[in-house]
Structures are given as structure tokens and as C-alpha cells.
């Protein structure tokens, strides 16, 4: 990836999320392959067997739905690669007829993303809906100097605050459509953004289950290419689309392939800082990413409940989410 790549952006929200934890854009690292020739840059140690991944993920999606007593699924389709990939994976697992894709643009969202989302819908032949969130968001923050329900101060809200609110409005829409469509909300966040906290708590991170949450962005690209996600979606720079021209990588100051490699060696392969530096990562980058991981630990866990009674959910009352009697009755 190079910083000079064409920016088209995604509608963010349910799919690509927004910035929950950014530091000052420190220099960090240089990008990987720069010439734009390959469809994506895939570090060798991250390469997965995409056939096995598709088998495992299809079984996972079918299993999650079956145990919950559902036959359908709903997701927010942004036009970005993550939600596009999940749409293809769900269609492969249960058939496109069981999938509802909801496009939820805000008035400033990139029109190109809308076009990319529509290309996915047309290719899959799944159900689709367009729900503009502009009224919901502007109704709170206000618009053109006129205060909304959030009061006059909300008119001055920073992009990050607005972006988080947008992600939560999209979540609210998806959970409502979950009822009308009678389908479970499928998560579309990847492992990279989850580990560095580039997600909105109870926003894009909210879902019934997530089939790609253990795949790094580079692996998402590899799987997307294998399953037939349109090339334009794979090629474009990932973006939360909170403001025109924003991209994940320019904002964070490092490329996904490099970040993915660092996370893989740090988290999955338990390498120490010294060992990572010996692999060529700068100490500054390692330290910065460590801070992002630690600082977002709370986003990856359910909130703690004060332990007061004899048996407490998540502490010493430990049941599987799905068990006899838990499935929805049709």
C-alpha cells in the first residue's frame, strides 16, 4: 500500500467503523509494496488457506444461525472490503436469499462507496435496503447552525464524536431490521481494527456473531480476492469515511500489511519487543501499537458486573450463549 493511492472511501459505520483510538499521527513505518501492481500486499506469514477458511466460516455461520433458531442474516454494507467480504461469506453459507444488506449513508458519505455496495448487492442478488442516517444524526447534533436534540454545544462536536454516533445509529438500524427481517446481525469488524481499538463500542462492534473477527486486514483482502469480491473494493484504501479524503492508513501512520505483521508476531506468536525490533520493527512503532492494544482492551470484553450475589453472569454463572430452550421460536 502506498499513501499516494486513490482515495474513494467507504461509508464506515457498521462495516468499517470509525476512529476510537488514534494517537498523534507519528511517523511509524513505511508502507509495503508501492507500485500498485498486485491486488493487495500479503505478508507471507499471514497467508491463509482460503478454501479451508471458507469451509470453516460457512460452518460457523450456519452453526450460529441454527443454534439461535434463525435462518436469515442482516448486515450493514458500506462499500468497504470488510462488509463486502462478510456479505459474500454469508451468501456462500446460507444462500443470498437469506441475506439482507442495509446501506446506511450519511449525507457526507462517499458516493463511490454507495456504488461499490450496490455492485455487491447486484452480484449476490440478495435483498437490500437503503436507510439514510442523516436525519437521525443531524437531529441530534443539529445542522446549519440550528441546534438539535443534543443542544447548542453539539453543533461543535468533533468528527470523532460524530463518527461514533453514526456508528451507533447504524447499529440501532441493524438491530431494528434484525426483527423485521427475522435475521441475526452479522459483525463485519476485522482482527486488526479490533486489536488497535479502531472500532466504536456498541457501534460497528455490535453484532450477534462475527465471522471475520479473527482475520487480519491482509487476510481479509486475501479471502475477499478468493471469494470474488469486486476488485475495485479490494484495491481502494480502507477508510472510516468520517471526512472527505480520510483513510485508515494515513490517519494511523502505518500500512495495514506492516501493522498486521506486527500484531501477528506480537499477539499470535508472543514475541518480545527485543525480538520484534530484531525483525525490523522500530521500537517506537512497537510501543505505540502496544499502547493502542492495551488502551482498547475494554472494547473487546463484556462490561464487568459488580460481584455481589452467589452466582454472577460471566463470573461463576457460565452458560453457553445458545443452549436447549434458547433458540427463537418461529
Amino acid at each position, binding site marked *: 500500500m502506498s499513501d499516494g493511492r486513490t482515495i474513494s472511501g467507504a461509508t464506515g459505520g457498521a462495516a468499517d467503523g470509525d476512529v476510537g483510538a488514534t494517537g498523534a499521527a507519528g511517523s511509524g513505518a513505511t508502507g509495503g509494496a508501492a507500485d500498485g501492481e498486485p491486488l493487495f500486499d500479503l505478508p507471507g506469514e499471514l*497467508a*491463509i*488457506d482460503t478454501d*479451508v477458511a471458507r469451509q*470453516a466460516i460457512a460452518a460457523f455461520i450456519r452453526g450460529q444461525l441454527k443454534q439461535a433458531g434463525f435462518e436469515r442474516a442482516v448486515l450493514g454494507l458500506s462499500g468497504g472490503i470488510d462488509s463486502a467480504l462478510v456479505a459474500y461469506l454469508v451468501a456462500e453459507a446460507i444462500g443470498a436469499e437469506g441475506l439482507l444488506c442495509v446501506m446506511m449513508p450519511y449525507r457526507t458519505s462517499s458516493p463511490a462507496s454507495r456504488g461499490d455496495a450496490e455492485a455487491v448487492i447486484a452480484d449476490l442478488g440478495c435483498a437490500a435496503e437503503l436507510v439514510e442516517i442523516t436525519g437521525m444524526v443531524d437531529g441530534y447534533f443539529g445542522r446549519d447552525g440550528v441546534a438539535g436534540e443534543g443542544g447548542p454545544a453539539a453543533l461543535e462536536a468533533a468528527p470523532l464524536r460524530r463518527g461514533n454516533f453514526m456508528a451507533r445509529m447504524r447499529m440501532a438500524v441493524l438491530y431494528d431490521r434484525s426483527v423485521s427481517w427475522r435475521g441475526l446481525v452479522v459483525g463485519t469488524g476485522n482482527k486488526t481494527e479490533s486489536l488497535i481499538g479502531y472500532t466504536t463500542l456498541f457501534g460497528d462492534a455490535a453484532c450477534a456473531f462475527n465471522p471475520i473477527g479473527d482475520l487480519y486486514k491482509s487476510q481479509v483482502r486475501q479471502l475477499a480476492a478468493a471469494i470474488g469480491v469486486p476488485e475495485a473494493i479490494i484495491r481502494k484504501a480502507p477508510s472510516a469515511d468520517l471526512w472527505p479524503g480520510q483513510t485508515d492508513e494515513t490517519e494511523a501512520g502505518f500500512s495495514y500489511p506492516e501493522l498486521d505483521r506486527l500484531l501477528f508476531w506480537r499477539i499470535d506468536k508472543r514475541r518480545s519487543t527485543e525480538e520484534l525490533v530484531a525483525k525490523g520493527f522500530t521500537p517506537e512503532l512497537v510501543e505505540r501499537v502496544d499502547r493502542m492494544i492495551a488502551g482498547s482492551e475494554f472494547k473487546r470484553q463484556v462490561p464487568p458486573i459488580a460481584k455481589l450475589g452467589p452466582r454472577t453472569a460471566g463470573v461463576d454463572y457460565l*452458560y*453457553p450463549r445458545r443452549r*436447549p430452550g434458547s433458540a427463537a421460536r418461529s
Partner: protein
Amino acid sequence: MQPLRIALAQIAPRLGDLEVNLARHHELLAEARDAGAGLVVFPELGLTGYLLSDLASEVAMRLDDPRLAQLAAATRGLSAVVSFVEESADHRLFIAAVLLEDGELRYVHRKIHLPTYGMFDERRFFAPGDMIRAAPSRLGVGVGLAVCEDFWHLSTPQLLALDGAQILVNVSSSPGRDLAMSNEVGLGTATSWRTLMRAYAQLTTSFVVFCNRVGVDESLSFWGGSEVIGPTGALVFGAPMFEEGLFTVDVDLADVRRERITLPLLRDERPELVAREWRRLIAERAGLAADGSAEPGAAAGFDVAVDR
């Protein structure tokens, strides 16, 4: 000798739903019988599902449970290995695999190694078994039962084979993980298991029968890939990964004799030497004997010397 037809019931148990899983076992036992199978193997916790947590006590069965007797009754003229949560009279819970034959419960193996690390939390909910024995069988050879993690310890297959097992049966609920392309068949778990089982079959010159479940419990997707490996260590049959089904394969038990004559590894084992060395290690770990490999100056039972 007539070939033995082995049926691998690579099923996706419903988590916590004993009745549904019992019905599925009856169905597949009948199907395997119709297919001419002599040995039918179901996966670890096939009657209950794997990730039970607090459900474990709610689906537990005592060995005198009538539902188990009904399942045994369905094995006339057959051998079957089934697995469930067993509750002892003193109310410990075990992950059990039992050999059912000719209408009776013939042998009970309680899982001896309970993984409690990484993604596993078995010791929190279960008690470990204390016996490794080969079970006599209507098949005319000893059968060695083991459950999943039991096979991640070298002593298990060795003890079973030395005790007379010629068919080592491992029933598993192995969650698939590590999708790296560098792995054989694209799945780290499958690569590790295949390596282990081939080695065990070769080293014990026995058949290894591996039945792993499919389906999903919570985050975990079980990968299937059940196998039968011959006493030379060569694959006889491999079921597909992630696919539910009843898979049958014929084996010639005379292969065991041929291999053991050719390669008398078991004959040449030295159990008395192994036992002696184990006793020494146990005494050293307990601080009851001097530890020759400890750092000089280390206190008894510790392998590190503390400088003061």
C-alpha cells in the same frame, strides 16, 4: 479373517441437548448396522456437545442411566464407542468414552488429561480419570480408548498398546485453528493431529481410529477429518474436513500381526526400565531424592539454585 468394517460417525452434536443427540446416535447406529459395520465410533461428548460449562452437571449421566442402557441395547452384534458426561456416585463429573458391545456396557474410559490452557477450560468443570487400560472386545483384539487430549501425551498410546490394545480409538472434539497456508491441508490443528496419529500407529504397530466432531459450539468450529491409520503408520481412510456424515472403511486386523512380526517394536519395549526411571523422576520432583540434573546447590525438589 473377515475384514472389520469401521464406521466413523462424524457428527455435529447439539450443545446441551441430550435427547436430540441420543436420537441421532440411535439413528446412526442403525444406519451403521445396515451398512455392515462391526465397530461404530462417535466423537468426544457426542451425546452432549463440547463447550458445556455449567451445563455439564445438567446433562451428566450415571453409568446405570436407563438411557445409556437403551443405547447399549442397540449394539447387539456390534461394537460402539460413545462419549458423554459421566457422574460418579460421589458426584464427580468425567468426560467418559464407553465401549458398548452386544447390548452391554463393556468398558468405561474417563478422560485422563483435561486441557486447561489457551482456549480450553476442562479442569474447571471436570475431574480427570485415573486409569488407562486396554478393553477386551468381541472384535477379538484389545481396544484402547482415549479422549482427545489423552493423545497429546506419549504415555497414553504406549500404555494402551502394551496392555494389549491393537485398535487405539481416540474420540475428539478438536476445534479447528491456525489457518496458515504453510500448514498441510491449511489447518494447523489437522497438521498436528495427523503427525501424532501416524507416529502412534507406527510406534505401537496398531490401528489408530480417530473420530473428530464437526459443527460449532460458540466460537469454536470443529474440523472433523476423522481417520483410520494402519499399523504401518499409513493412512487407510480420511473423512473430509467440516462435513457431517457416517463414513465406513474396511480394515484387515491381520495387518497388526504382519507389522508386529516385521517390526517388533512392542516386543522390545522396556516397561521395567521406564517404570524405574519414572519412579526416580517422581522422587526427585518430590524432593525425596537427589536431582542429578538440577543446578549445583539447588534445594531438594527444586532445579534452580538460589544465590544469596
